[in-house]
């Protein structure tokens, strides 16, 4: 049994938050450069150039890429041979508190959603997903999820008969309805199958995958490619002002489901897809 102290978890997470708030991953920067080359709309090209410039300024001056520094979402994959000394949830929340303070990030969490909405002042609590996996390591993946994109999430409980085409139409409807609000070019997380809550979990977790890396399952990879092509045919373009590049990528996960079900969860991510991981 390997031991990990909760203080290591907090320190690693706060460091990850500080790093991801001001620097986009190389995969996203590459995708934005490619989008600039592919875009034919003059306004769209201008916007994509501004986004690349924004990434440079954020990196140089250590200013958050976006003022919406998000809900802190943490996926913790704990090896079954790991023992955590201390409380995992407290350790994650301490890391979030420290990271958001150190990097001058906006604190956007309110304690009560439907009445008083009082700001907790430190961006906690984080939304935490834990999974037990084989091994003796702890992997922490962090995602800062702005609400411009998150608010456009949709869950469809489709009739199984609609099949492949029904899944694609659900995504197209979501993206069309979202228009310019989620800051296109977007990244699309898609969860197909299982149950309502698992589908949404898969859609969000898929967004952790590096852009440009297709699903290892051929059929799912083919779905991703087709959805991307069809979404980019909608003409929504950067910020919704029209163009060929509405999405930078589609990442899907599929899972077995009930004979009567076809859940489809769509979770949109903005172009400023801030995430990263650390393994302890």
């Amino acid at each position: 049994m390997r031991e990990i102290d909760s203080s290591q978890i907090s320190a690693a997470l706060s460091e990850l938050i500080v790093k991801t708030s001001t620097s986009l991953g190389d995969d996203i920067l590459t995708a934005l450069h490619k989008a600039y080359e592919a875009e034919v709309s003059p306004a769209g090209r201008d916007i994509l150039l501004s986004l690349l410039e924004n990434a440079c300024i954020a990196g140089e001056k250590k200013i958050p890429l976006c003022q919406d520094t998000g809900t802190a979402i943490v996926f913790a994959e704990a090896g079954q041979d790991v023992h955590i000394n201390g409380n995992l949830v407290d350790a994650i929340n301490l890391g979030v508190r420290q990271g958001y303070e150190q990097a001058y990030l906006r604190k956007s969490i309110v304690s009560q959603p439907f009445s008083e909405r009082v700001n907790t002042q430190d961006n906690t609590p984080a939304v935490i997903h834990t999974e037990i996996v084989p091994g003796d390591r702890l992997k922490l993946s962090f995602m800062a999820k702005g609400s411009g994109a998150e608010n456009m999430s949709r869950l469809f409980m489709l009739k199984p008969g609609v099949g492949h085409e029904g899944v694609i139409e659900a995504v197209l409807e979501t993206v069309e309805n979202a228009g310019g609000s989620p800051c296109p070019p977007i990244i699309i997380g898609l969860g197909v199958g299982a149950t309502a809550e698992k589908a949404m979990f898969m859609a969000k977790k898929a967004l952790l995958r590096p852009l440009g890396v297709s699903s290892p399952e051929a059929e799912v990879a083919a779905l991703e490619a087709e959805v991307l092509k069809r979404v980019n045919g909608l003409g929504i373009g950067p910020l919704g002002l029209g163009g060929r590049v509405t999405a930078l990528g589609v990442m899907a996960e599929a899972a077995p489901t009930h004979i009567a079900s076809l859940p489809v969860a769509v979770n949109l991510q903005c172009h400023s897809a801030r995430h990263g991981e650390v393994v302890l």
Partner: protein
Amino acid sequence: MSGIKLNSPFNPAELEKLQAGDRVLISGVIYAARDAAHKRLVEALNQGKPLPFDLKGQTVYYMGPSPAKPGEVIGSAGPTTSSRMDRYTPELLDAGLLAIIGKGNRSAEVSRAIVGKKAVYFISIGGAGALLSQRIKESRMVAYPELGAEAILALKVEDFPAIVAIDSQGNNAFTLGQSIYRTAKEA
């Protein structure tokens, strides 16, 4: 981004010349206000109380900044989703507001109110908060400091980039732009 140079508060005649899709660079003073501040402004209007600033001819920017680092005027400062403010916008336009900066499309009701008041809805660059922060030269607290990131700020801006999304005639840059690049929905 290049564009037509404009000054806020606006001259209504100048705003009327703008066309959906025009790129502009705004200088002058704009007021940052988002969800919670809008709720309070409209409550004040409904109760006949004075507003914390005169809206006449002014520009509201839907933005809640990240905290300023020491030595900086403001933190990251990009636009937030405008549709959340749709329920409040017609009343604020009635009270004299002339221009709005946000991101994303507006409701048909807001679009009609914009035409009725010969106002303009601009969008700025969503997710470019670091870049946009560099165009903000001064920031002053105007009202509701207890709302934190949602307080109303007066911002002095220079060449702040924006695009006319809905012009004073009701032309919509989203609809116009998307119709050009839309290919068949089917594969």
